[in-house]
């Protein structure tokens, strides 16, 4: 097991390295004027621009920049955002550090993705197990048809409709915005009140603001997971050990949940890991519609700022997202091992291909 985890960690580190190199190379090829973040390019002399370029470090060769970036990143420092960066006369820079900026955004995106997956599994697993016991029945056809309609509707459209009707017209949930899970401190609240605004927070406010985003997210994936659960359950329910469990006199619920679902679940867990990249994409749509300050919005702000793209923020977002996806996959591997310890020997590839073939 330790060897298995170590091997996967090694692959993950290599992936991260290549990913950061590619991002760096890509952006070194895109012409831009980072000096524009600091001075007014129209009224600056060439010498001034060159000086700012030097202070930002973008006049050095790309590998020197990359080396500096890696060394700093290994110390947990992702540098300063170019947007709003300032230099004192001594040349020390001050501004918004990328790490916390991306961290705050990542928490929002993680709330959407994790909560969305939980809701999705809470719908797909019981429903899939239920319809598998009554294949081709009314519930089966209805749930399949509805979930197919859901996957064929663009998440943007689903989100916009939910926001317009459930949020703005019927006031079932807040239509947009985000509240942190941890409630703000009294001092922060007083400070905000002094400035004439109000801070929200706390588990209840957090969840209520995220209900519509979670539904939007879950609706997109529910068809895939429902179908997968149904197919696997139908397979497993035919197995001899299920017959044995029934013969022993276990209740139907106990047979389906304890004996069948437990054995059907591993390819579904694998699917969660494989869909992580796509989930981040769907989260971007969801953030867009519900005005959540997540990674998607951070990225687009960094790309469409007044002075051009904000490279440190972009690299930060890419790295944090990639680390999250890799960690999630590692977690999935560990969960699979917990469900079925023979997995380390059989390997995950076989499971993944079984998941997609079904």
């Amino acid at each position: 097991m330790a060897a298995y985890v170590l091997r996967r960690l090694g692959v993950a580190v290599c992936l991260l390295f290549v990913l950061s190199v590619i991002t760096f190379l890509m952006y070194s090829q895109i012409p831009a004027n980072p000096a524009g973040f600091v001075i007014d390019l129209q009224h600056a002399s060439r010498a001034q621009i060159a000086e700012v370029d030097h202070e930002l470090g973008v006049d050095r060769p790309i590998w020197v920049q990359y080396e500096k970036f890696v060394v700093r990143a290994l110390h947990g420092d992702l540098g300063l955002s170019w947007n709003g960066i300032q230099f004192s006369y001594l040349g020390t820079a001050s501004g918004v550090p990328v790490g916390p900026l991306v961290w705050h955004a990542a928490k929002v995106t993680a709330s959407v993705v994790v909560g969305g997956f939980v809701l999705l599994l809470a719908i797909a697993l019981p429903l899939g197990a239920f319809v598998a016991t009554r294949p081709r029945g009314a519930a089966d056809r209805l749930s399949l048809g509805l979930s197919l309609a859901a996957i064929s509707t663009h998440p943007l459209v689903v989100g916009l409709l939910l926001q317009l009707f459930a949020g703005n017209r019927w006031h079932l949930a807040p239509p947009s915005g985000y509240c942190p899970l941890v409630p703000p401190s009294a001092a922060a609240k007083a400070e905000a009140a002094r400035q004439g605004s109000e801070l929200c927070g706390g588990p209840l406010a957090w969840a209520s603001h995220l209900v519509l985003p979670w539904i939007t997210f879950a609706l997109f994936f529910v068809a895939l997971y429902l179908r997968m659960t149904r197919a696997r359950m139908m397979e497993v329910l035919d197995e001899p050990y299920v017959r044995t469990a029934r013969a022993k006199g276990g209740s139907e619920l106990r047979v389906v949940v304890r004996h069948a679902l437990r054995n059907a679940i591993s390819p579904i867990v694998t699917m969660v890991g494989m869909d992580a990249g796509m989930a981040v994409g769907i989260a971007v749509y969801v953030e867009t519609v519900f005005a959540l300050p997540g990674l998607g919005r951070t990225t687009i702000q960094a790309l469409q700022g007044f002075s051009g793209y904000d490279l440190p923020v972009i690299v930060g977002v890419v790295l944090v997202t990639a680390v999250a996806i890799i960690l999630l996959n590692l977690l999935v591997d560990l969960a699979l091992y917990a469900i079925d310890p023979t997995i380390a020997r059989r390997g995950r590839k076989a499971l993944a291909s079984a998941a997609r073939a079904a």
Partner: protein
Amino acid sequence: MSSEVTVVTGYDALEREELRPLGPWAVAWRRLRRDRVALVSGAVFLAILFAVTAGGPIVSALVGHGPNDPFPYAVGSTLRPVGPWTHVWDTFQAPATGLNEIGLPPPPKGTGKTLFVLGADGPLGRDELLRLLYGGRVSLLVAIGATLLALAIGTILGAAAGYLGGAVDAVVSRFTDLVMAFPYLLFIVMIGSTVDGISGWTLHGALNEGVLQLMVLIGAFTWFYPARIVRTRMQQLRGAEFVDAAAMTGARDARIVRTHLLPHVVPPLLVYATLAVATNVMLEVGVTFLGAGVHLPTSSWGSLLAQTWGTLLNPNPYNPATTQPWLTILPSLAIFLTVFSLNQLGEGMREALDPRGGR
């Protein structure tokens, strides 16, 4: 009257339809013909395809204006576009006297009227139906082009990895893992909104601006799926007897792959391609909505949605006074029908092409 005895020989029986053995494609087609859902889906998709390719110019010729022509009289006094089936004054110019409270003063005498079948698209007063049709052309062009590109890259890399194995396989597989771990929507948005290099490429006017760039970006990030399909099939078939037989007759690797192995990956790739076009339509809509896709004034289904709802940084709260619900419903419906019919067709094809299925 002479009595005739008909002798049915084995050869004659083979000539007759029912006894001739069916090829795999004929079997698949027979199964598909019995699958009513798949047939209807296929017909719907073909109809959409026809509407967005030939329908645009036909409607344009019938109503007498183009998709990018602005009609000031197609917009109400609160900038609310006119609804479906409205006749508006056929002029691009508002009179110089300008707006008053009621709206525009009447146009000069002798101006005709022109029909807006589905109403106007927004404050500029362009024909929604035409923008929908021409926008669908752009969306489907991006989706199909990107799918073909992904198929080409994926087939080549997958075939190389699966057939050659060894070091080639190791390199390609790691590369595939890498691309799979990419949050590709973020990447497409990142590159799409910063790189302007190829957004102006139109292949001498054959494509609209931004179309080729989007095709290349989507294709470049989605080839890993066909690559995995092809690689797995190639690995399974590499040791098959017919491959050994071909090698023994002196066929070289390239020929074995091309004429003996590739036909085996066509069915799964066909199913993949059908489903991928659906996914790519969604992706085009999303990327354009996020401001990194097809540029205005070219319409696409994504930009039609974005026009009503604003983009990420310029959100545009829905205001019934200045917009029509049609402007959300119509593009959404177009996207839904396309994606739904392609998904159903893909599923039908998967079942029809399954070698384990019955006749």
